[in-house]
């Protein structure tokens, strides 16, 4: 199969980028999208050109490193899929494919398709944890948690922090990412004690990082590779308002 690629190339954080055209032939339908880029990069090396930089690591859909806009959609045309799990059987011979980095003010471009997502780490640092120091934990079966609650907490905890929700949101909101963490921790009995403080700090940090507000478009859920539900945003708002109302 042969594809016509338009790839965003940008030298540095502050330089001006632009779309560059490439033709890639000899693509097999079994290749992953990233393996197709590997093939292109191998050819660029042969021509003496700088390779296209992109983030990737586990290539099995769980590390959250990969992510790019493919034809205007985060992680490409499939739902519930990371870029590394997108295979070329989803494209047609002769198709033109546009590849761009995830764009958000809080996610500056480092080079080509590589972006800086450290703002997510700072949101977690602001309170996205349970304050359990090592070595003094109680016997685990002394904390009973129903099967349903564990499963619900897991559904939220499954977020891989890839940033697709931000990239696809017209406001570049990090509400889905932040709310997934809020839900994960507030559903569990261990996380309840710090719930009010946590939600206020995390929402504050999310704003401070320059992410936009959620306006309930729900595009984030559509593009989330882990299919995290927007209902978590509802829970975050509820927890936030409750925390404000009860704040001493």
């Amino acid at each position, binding site marked *: 199969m042969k594809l016509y690629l338009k790839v965003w190339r940008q030298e540095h954080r502050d330089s001006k980028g632009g779309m560059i055209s490439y033709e890639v032939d000899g693509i*097999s339908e*079994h*290749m*992953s999208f990233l*393996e197709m880029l*590997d*093939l292109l990069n191998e050819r660029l*090396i042969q021509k*003496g*050109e*700088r*390779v296209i*930089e992109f983030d990737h*690591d*586990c*290539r*099995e859909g*769980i*590390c*959250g*490193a990969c992510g790019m806009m493919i034809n205007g959609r985060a992680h490409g045309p*499939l739902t*519930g*899929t990371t870029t590394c*799990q997108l*295979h070329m059987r989803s494209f047609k011979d002769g198709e033109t494919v546009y590849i761009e980095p995830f764009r958000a003010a809080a996610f500056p471009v*480092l*080079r080509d398709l*590589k972006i800086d*997502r*450290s703002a997510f*780490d700072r949101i*977690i*640092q602001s309170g*996205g*944890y*349970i304050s*359990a*120091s*090592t*070595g003094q*934990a109680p*016997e*685990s*079966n002394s*904390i*009973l*948690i*129903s*099967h349903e609650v*564990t499963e619900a*907490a*897991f559904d939220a*905890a*499954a977020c*891989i*922090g890839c940033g697709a929700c931000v990239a696809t949101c017209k406001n570049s909101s990090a509400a889905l990412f932040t709310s997934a963490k809020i839900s994960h*921790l507030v559903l569990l009995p*261990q*996380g309840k004690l710090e719930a009010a403080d946590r939600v206020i700090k995390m929402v504050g940090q999310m704003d401070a990082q320059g992410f936009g507000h959620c306006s309930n478009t729900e595009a984030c859920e559509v593009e989330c590779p882990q299919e995290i539900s927007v209902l978590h945003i509802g829970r975050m708002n509820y927890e936030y308002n409750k925390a404000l109302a009860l704040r001493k």
Partner: protein
Amino acid sequence: MIDAKIPAGDLADKWNNYKDSSKLINPANRKKLDIIVVGTGLAGSSCAATLAEQGYNVNSFCFQDSARRAHSVAAQGGVNAAKNYKNDGDSVYRMFYDTIKGGDFRSREANVYRLAECSLSLIDQAVAQGVPFAREYGGYLNNRSFGGVQVSRTFYARGQTGQQLMIGAYQALMRQVSAGKVKTYTRHEMLDLVLIDGKARGIIARNLETGEIERHVANAVVLATGGYGKVYYLSTLAMGCNSSAIWRAHKKGAFMSGVSWIQFHPTCLPQIGETQSKLTLMSESLRNDGRIWVPKKAGDERVPNDIPEEERDYYLERRYPTFGNLSPRDISSRAAKERIDAGCGVGPMKNAVCLDFSKAIREQGRDKIEEKYGNLFKMYDKINGVNAYKEPMLISPAAHFTMGGLWVDYDLMTTIPGLFALGEANFSDHGANRLGANSLLQSCVDGYFIAPYTIPNYLSRELKSEKVTTDHPAFIDAENNVREQLNRFLNLKGHLSADHFHKTLGKLLYDKCGLSRTRKSLEEAIVEIRSLKKSFDHELKITGDDGVNSELEKAGRVSDFLELGELMCHDALQREESCGAHFREEYQTPDGEAVRNDQDFCYVSAWEWKGEAVEPELHKEPLVFETVKLTVRSYK
């Protein structure tokens, strides 16, 4: 002979004795001590967070853009702990014995016992952090079983246990960042270790975002950088997994052990093309309900569903009736290779076997199977476009976990004072084969419960040692060496990419030092790797500049893999026996089972670097078994 410094006393008392007698450091003094932790997987994050909780200043390094992305995140199946929640006869001793036996009696009793002992606290710790392990309807924790054991001691969070434990450790780390006790250096790669007065006192790191070469000083350095299975290029590991940090420490004097003990995981997706970069792991837990078979007839061209029951060979159930589909990984992988080599493989490249859920679905219903393994079935469908609820999954063995790594003593300290190695980066607890669900355990207990005792014990002696700064000549020398290598890579006018060399090395190792080895194949491999290294030194081509440049990063890693690959062959050549993941064809029974030689090889090989293209020097740490009796490992 090297000393593992195993504490005195009965096996069950050794760790308590150690803790009782280890030196403590006054909280006021802890603030004066800096520790570098390289790697932010389960071992690195948990160690960095715990040391920071204790009051030390920790600098944490990882090459990923966020600490949360370390490859521990990809482990699927579960984590073992001898809690005996199922009342099925489990105990610390039984877990210790299963692990020693699973490792084919090539690990230390004291370390393995400690691993089983600490497993109890780990589950409590993880639950306290909010790890959503599977629960029964009554609210109690649930368990399942893994290969090589007959009890249910594996705790799991769907098929994403590694991810959830990782997020717990990452959050603990982020909490300490917020408290100002940890400083994280993401997108940083350690390129050299700095020794002063023979002790580890810092690292040289490259900032992968700016290209800057940085010097970092500390009172101790911890390497928790994972395994090197990516040396085979096609493996279950992340693309960035590499051996550079441990290899560069090795070249500075740290010994490497058990280097050729590399586990080939039996349940991976098979290679289907030449441009493939990765072999995806399917959790071993699938073997609880999936049955493994191949057609009885070699060269059978029918699709699996068209092959009737009586023409299927459930070869694990046939050969190992007691353990069946849950036979340990090395045995299951070799059994698959044996059938594939016999011409019974299935799939487009005839390199796979069937993992069949039809019986389990018939008996338990699709819903139950979906609840247990749903995400794995979904992943299979994404990658292959095949619905495994309707036809068998095709699986194949792939390079996975490295039991080898830096040699460490009971303190998890390498042969360089002040340099510690945790998790998969050390050789320590698995012997010649790792049992399923023990890797997450080892990484976590090394980081949460062991290193936080042993590192302070070392540091208590360092309080009075001379203060050094990054202006020390040792830092300048190390930095110059790093710069020189990077410049050499950038200025080479070759015509072959780093990936080309990596793929060539990987194929060579897979064929000659992979699932099985012979004297002849290993001797050939050493010659061929040396020649490949020479070619790499002249024909490499790197484009781009010294800023963000993934090709430049790869070049350094491939250079190290080439040297490491050679050491793997030396290690496999020298060990004239078959044990665990190391199968020398010369040493097998008539029916193809491994023949171990306790008379001559009951030791850990510890290799010392003697220079490029010079034979490494072998040191031996004899393995002393006081509690268990060495037996022939049988799963029949």
